[in-house]
């Protein structure tokens, strides 16, 4: 061992919580933004005083006022309450996509790596094939099967996100599987499932959750896009993506508030998810 390695070693040994509580300032800000957005999604509806679906044609495109903090949309609906109540729809969708694709992708990748042989090659081929399709295109195709609506969009995006997660998990699991400790456990007679779930999975969990955070941002954009073109969340349910869609008309009439506010929230959330995810990915790669 060289002196440099010895120093690194001593550093590793003295560091108390290597599981990185130490995010950068940017990382902390991103985490805080996500927390606020999550709180809005959960408790937002409680703050809403005006019915988000109440139409008031006389107040169309009105500017901010004490009753309508951010003004009203083309149908005179209250923008503030629509943004708040839209938060949960806008965030639950991507969350479901991330959870479903992460669970599915991880399960596929781990079993492919453990079973190996033709099964692994088959999985790898399928992953590559699905990977070649743009997620959004796949989702649009899927809506022709499942119909429109949030549910259909979530299922479609989950399928198109699965290969992305599976590819990353497969690479990490392959590296992990080649380590001597896995051979030692095999020699002891542990089941493949035990080794995969109790040893390999915890060691790559950091990388998986980091990539899940990252794909949350992408899923949010993709779902918003689907809602924007009318294939996702259907009127009159409030949703940020759908609000950009319905706000398009306002932009042409120089009344861009609705689209602007919805886009702003999407951009902030996505930027936060991406920077946090990026940082977590880098860290988990350095660690392993």
């Amino acid at each position: 061992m060289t002196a440099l390695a010895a120093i690194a070693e001593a550093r590793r040994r003295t560091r108390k919580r290597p599981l990185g509580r130490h995010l950068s300032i940017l990382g902390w800000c991103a985490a805080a933004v996500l927390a606020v957005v999550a709180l809005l999604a959960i408790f937002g509806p409680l703050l809403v005083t005006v019915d988000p679906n109440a139409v008031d044609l006389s107040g169309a495109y009105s500017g901010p006022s004490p009753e309508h903090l951010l003004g009203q949309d083309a149908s005179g609906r209250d923008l503030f309450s629509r943004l708040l109540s839209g938060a949960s729809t806008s965030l639950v969708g991507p969350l479901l996509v991330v959870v479903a694709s992460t669970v599915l992708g991880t399960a596929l990748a781990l079993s492919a790596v453990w079973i190996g042989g033709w099964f692994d090659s088959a999985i790898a081929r399928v992953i590559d094939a699905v990977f070649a399709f743009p997620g959004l295109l796949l989702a649009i195709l899927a809506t022709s099967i499942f119909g429109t609506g949030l549910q259909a969009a979530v299922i479609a995006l989950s399928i198109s996100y699965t290969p992305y997660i599976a590819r990353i998990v497969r690479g990490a699991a392959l590296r992990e599987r080649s380590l001597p400790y896995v051979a030692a456990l095999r020699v002891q007679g542990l089941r493949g499932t035990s080794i995969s779930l109790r040893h390999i999975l915890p060691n790559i969990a950091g990388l998986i959750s980091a990539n899940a955070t990252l794909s949350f941002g992408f899923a949010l954009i993709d779902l918003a896009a689907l809602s924007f073109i009318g294939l996702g969340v259907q009127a009159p349910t409030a949703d940020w993506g759908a609000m950009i869609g319905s706000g398009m008309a306002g932009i042409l009439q120089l009344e861009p508030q609705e689209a602007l506010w919805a886009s702003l929230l999407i951009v902030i959330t996505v930027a936060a998810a991406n920077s946090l995810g990026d940082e977590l990915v880098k860290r988990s790669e350095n660690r392993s």
Partner: protein
Amino acid sequence: MSALLEVDGLSVQLPVAGEFRTVLQDVSFSLEAGQTLGLVGESGSGKSMTVRSIARLLPPGARTTGSIRFDGASVLDLRGDALRKFRSRDVSMIFQDPRAHTNPVRKIGDFLTEAMRINGKVPPREAERRAVELLAEVGIHDGERRLKQFPHELSGGLLQRVMIAASLAVKPRLILADEPTTALDVTTQSEVMAILARLQREYGMAMLFITHDLELAAAVCDRTVVMYAGAMVEHQDSSRLHTDPLHPYSAALMQARPEIDRRVPRLPAIPGHPTSAFEAPDGCAFAPRCRFAEDACRAALPPLESMGDAAYSRCRRAAELRGHLLATAEHSGGLGDGAGVGDSAGLEEEVAR
């Protein structure tokens, strides 16, 4: 005659997690042209750090005190072109893992001729001819074929010879060899060492040879420095190291190594584990593991003192213990006395809390 390389009072601190940690303290030695000096030690001893300091390859932010003089010039003050010239012409480094120091997608020929073509402005054909000659010097006689091969097509020993050939290309005056044979098989090690020794004789180069293998150092080096926890503990002629060690650590290290021609009932292991300079306690860093340590040893780090005949030891009991260090200890370092198999528990390493 003044020495080619003079290191005097060299101390190095590295920034680790916001604080400076000592990795080298008070290292002093000199090396003349044509001579080989061995630096021997375990993990954290500072042997690699010493060589890195000389090649000016310390990580950014390192604090260095003391002086390093090469041919009279202060190495620590070299800047810009002078530093580049020092690194490219005057010294060459050979590393433990040649594979990590070659570009896997470039051919051996490119690797060998690059420096000549860029630094020496030698035309390609001429450079290639020189490369074949260099390979012949390190015992590779099918040079033309090797130049067209990629690093992965060569065995570790062959690749290390290519590295040596590359370091010869500039005819350096000093070779810094950092465990050049550790990753090689013993038969290959023997060949590579023979090549190094011959070239050194022919070119009159000085060599600083780093190894963890005391036997190897004693066999190939004129003088040997034994290091522990960032400091030199012993410095003397290699030929006397075996019969007349001057520091309890060198003696214990020699005894702990099994021998090829006999088996002992128990190896006299050194209790505890090697430490780095910044982890070492006050006083003599080896005291906690030393069977000769007294209370006074733990009070202050003793200086490196002359024992006559250009021999030095950093042990305050060196004079008194001289000649007795290799006497078999009845208690063999305290290990294995009836307390059962796991008795070394308390003696081996502590868990960092």
